[in-house]
């Protein structure tokens, strides 16, 4: 006989049925990442909409984001470096997960700190890029290079991504500190590193789409 009322609600929703045979933390992280996919998906769709519907020429990202090395302008140089930094951070993160599952918590924590450092470097370069564009007169409501929607799309999309990277850096540092202190040693359960890794790889994944659709298109 099912119990009524609030108690019944809790019982029904937690009645020992399991769809995903993974740790609950991992399933929940995946579902959070799925919801985040929709947020970034909506941002990128909004960007597509304003870019397709404007009658003013869209600023050429290849020129807007060029850096001068000596006298020559190299297109998208900073963005390319940022891409390689983020991919490298994903590589070190994958190896940190590997170390954690081999119970090598010292190296796992070290690799996570390296990952966080790459992430901080990425955010630093993004701050540089933002200030450069702001100095050149790019605002959310207009810019000297072309369509006004360029600024709002740029600041919204890269800003939201940068916030994710910043949150990820903090998350990684917290988990790495706990690893160092041996907090997970007792239960011998190092799944938390893989879960943190899932978030970090997702941040890299989103950048793949932003790089392709916003900077290269």
């Amino acid at each position, binding site marked *: 006989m099912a119990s009524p009322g609030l108690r019944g609600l809790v019982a029904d929703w937690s009645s020992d049925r399991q769809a*995903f*045979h993974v740790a609950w933390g991992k399933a929940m992280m995946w579902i959070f990442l*799925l919801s985040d*996919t929709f947020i970034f998906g909506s941002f990128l769709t909004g960007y*597509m909409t304003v870019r397709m519907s404007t*009658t003013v020429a869209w600023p050429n990202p290849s020129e807007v984001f060029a850096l001068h090395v000596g006298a020559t302008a190299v297109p998208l140089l900073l963005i390319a470096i940022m891409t390689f930094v983020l991919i490298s951070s994903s*590589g070190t993160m994958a190896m940190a997960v590997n170390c954690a599952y081999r119970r090598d918590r010292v190296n796992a924590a070290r690799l996570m700190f390296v990952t966080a450092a790459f992430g901080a470097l990425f955010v630093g370069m993004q701050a540089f890029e933002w200030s450069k564009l702001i100095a050149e007169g790019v605002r959310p409501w207009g810019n000297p290079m072309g369509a006004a929607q360029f600024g709002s799309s740029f600041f919204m999309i890269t800003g939201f991504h940068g916030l994710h990277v910043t949150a990820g850096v903090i998350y990684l540092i917290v988990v790495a500190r706990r690893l160092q202190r041996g907090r997970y040693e007792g239960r011998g359960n190092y*799944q938390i590193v893989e879960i943190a890794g899932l978030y970090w790889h997702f941040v890299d*994944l989103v950048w793949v789409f932003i790089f392709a659709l916003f900077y290269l298109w």
Partner: protein
Amino acid sequence: MDTAGGQQQHPISLYLKIWALLFVLSALSYGVDYFHLQGLWRWGLILVFMMLKAGLIVAVFMHLAWERLALIYAILLPPLALLVLVGLMASEAGYVHLTRLLFFR
């Protein structure tokens, strides 16, 4: 590969290979811009490299390739709804563009 505790244990050489592959793919997609490819080649290659990189990250780095189908489908199918949104908004954007050409020039 997938041990009893749901742990993902794979050789480190696999991660290094994928890492190298992601570097190559990023360099190639940067090359698309650097060598000023235009038109069909440009957006075709951008999309191909983007999907290859995304696939490698999700399948190997996030271990989705070794998860059970129940989880794989739960994660990969819902984002397909975004394609519907993209389709709707593309047609809407085309319409807005045409009306702007007619009335705001």
